[in-house]
């Protein structure tokens, strides 16, 4: 049995989730007695490939082409499918990222491989992988088994451990995939990064979120100050987004992002069920709300029942002192 781990890179740098995927695949390989290799697709990526050895793979296949600098749903899928075929891989792991989800869906259809998407846990039973994944934005969990010969699993970022990197370099082997211009029927032509310096919610280790109780967009300034102090992402409830105070990509919840940071601070968010669905898998939750009956306190590890306009600036001030950033 052979396992192939897709290591996502952008601009010649691996994303953190690439290490998580390689390490999770490494653990799956040892549980199943399977052979492991990683796969990198992009432009000039041969040079970074060996570093994946630190996360448990001895071999890295590389598909590189100047036209693969940016993502192309069609061309990347062709490249990965060709690598799956030529390496005789049975199981493919990808990250459940914007790129990984798109690619996994194409590959599932292309290869006739069943897909377990956005998995948060893997266990092994009689030589099979049983994947746990949240559904209804985390209101329920399902255990899924893929029954096709080839199988695809996408792993939610920030959930699986990347392990302790070892001082190992992986051997690199190029896979030659001839790509035609017609393979780029859908292609990315440019990328714009929105919020310089602030991590994306699905990748952030800490998230500070604000809700309707803040009363207006200007009051998100104190949320941003606290977030920037901690290197955190800024989130919002649906109420705050629907009011036009924050862009929709900041929305946490069932019709927004599902997040699992180490620390989630909910400020002036009451905790509607659709919000709780998106954030209750956070490792630690802090709630600051003046309504002691607010449902957010039901999931919070630590709560302060009080006025956000008093507590948040104080928290920022005290943390600045503690972190020596006054």
């Amino acid at each position, binding site marked *: 049995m052979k396992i192939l781990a897709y290591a996502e890179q952008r601009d010649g740098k691996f994303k953190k989730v690439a290490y998580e995927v390689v390490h999770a695949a490494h653990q799956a390989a040892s549980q199943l007695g399977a052979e492991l290799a990683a796969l990198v697709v992009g432009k000039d990526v041969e040079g970074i490939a060996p570093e994946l050895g630190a996360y448990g793979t001895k071999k890295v296949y590389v598909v590189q082409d100047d036209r693969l600098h940016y993502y192309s*749903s069609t061309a990347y*899928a062709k490249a990965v499918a060709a690598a799956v075929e030529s390496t005789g891989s049975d199981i493919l792991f990808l990250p459940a990222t*914007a*790129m990984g*989800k*798109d690619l*996994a*869906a*194409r590959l*599932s*259809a292309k290869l006739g491989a*069943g*897909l377990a*998407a*956005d998995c948060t846990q893997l266990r092994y039973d009689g030589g099979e992988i049983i994947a746990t994944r*949240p559904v*209804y934005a985390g*209101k*329920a*969990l*399902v255990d*899924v*088994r*893929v029954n096709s010969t080839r199988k695809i699993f996408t792993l939610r970022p920030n959930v699986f451990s990347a392990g302790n990197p070892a001082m190992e370099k992986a051997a690199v082997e190029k896979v030659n995939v001839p790509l035609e211009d017609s393979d780029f*029927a*859908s*292609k*990315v*032509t440019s990328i*714009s990064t929105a*919020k310089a310096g*602030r991590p*994306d919610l699905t*990748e952030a280790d800490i998230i500070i979120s604000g809700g309707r109780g803040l009363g207006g967009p200007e009051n998100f300034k104190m949320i941003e100050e606290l977030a920037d102090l*901690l290197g955190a992402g800024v989130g919002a409830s649906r109420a705050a987004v629907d009011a036009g105070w924050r*862009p*929709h*990509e900041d929305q946490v919840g*069932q*019709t927004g992002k*599902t997040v699992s940071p180490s*620390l989630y601070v909910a400020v002036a968010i009451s905790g509607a*069920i*659709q919000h709780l*669905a998106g954030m*209750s898998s956070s490792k*630690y939750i*802090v709630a600051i709300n003046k309504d*002691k009956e607010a449902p957010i*306190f*039901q999931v*919070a*590890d*630590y*709560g*302060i029942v*009080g006025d956000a306009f*008093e*507590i948040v600036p104080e928290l920022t001030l005290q943390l600045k002192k*503690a972190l020596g950033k006054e």
Partner: protein
Amino acid sequence: MKLFVCVNQVPDTETKVKVSPDGKTIDRSDVNLILNPYDEFAVEAALQLKEKFGGEVTYVSVGGDSNKEVIRKALAMGGDKGILIKTESTGDSYSVAKAIAEALKDSGADMIFFGKQSIDYDDASVGTMVAELLGLPSASVVVKLEVSQNVVTCEREIEGGKETVELTLPCVITAQKGLNEPRYPSLKGIMAAKSKPITEVTPAPIAPLAEVLEMRKPPAKQPGKILGTDKTAVPELIRLLHEEAKVI
């Protein structure tokens, strides 16, 4: 333009999920079923293109008779007709995508729209699978869309930014919140929808490739500590985050 929008019926976001006695699906009794929220952006995108370029909008849904309700809901917003692909069981994303691809393979579609994911199984896969099965280019999680001549330019959301994607017609688009503001069905629209045709097709059964073995509720979280009612609680909060949770 020949426009298709695939629409799904899902429990609304206020639903408190209960697992049904089969232990594999949710209990749909007492659950309010709605048009999948992301599909509303897909419907709106297709209607705007029809208004601009002319043509027709057809809605496609996979499921049982109750899925006609979401087709009617979409028809009330606008558009021309519906196709219900009747299936007994839900299957997986692959079997749903196969059924849609089979139904649309000779449709002459210029564009096929989906919501970026259904808020029940959250797979975010069916649209892109259909694209691959039909040999079409696609862009997923789209927040901006322009169609000019034969070229579609759109923006898709990625971690911490946006990608501009260029693709050629015919193509598949999956819509994300932010793409547009879906219109509300007018009373006239609701009345008109009642007489718009919905045809039914029954595909040969397609075996799913992935199987749900068990569904369960996540372990309930114990309510935590209330540390105080004003800013004097802040030092204790910082201490706990540092010493107990070890997150800062």
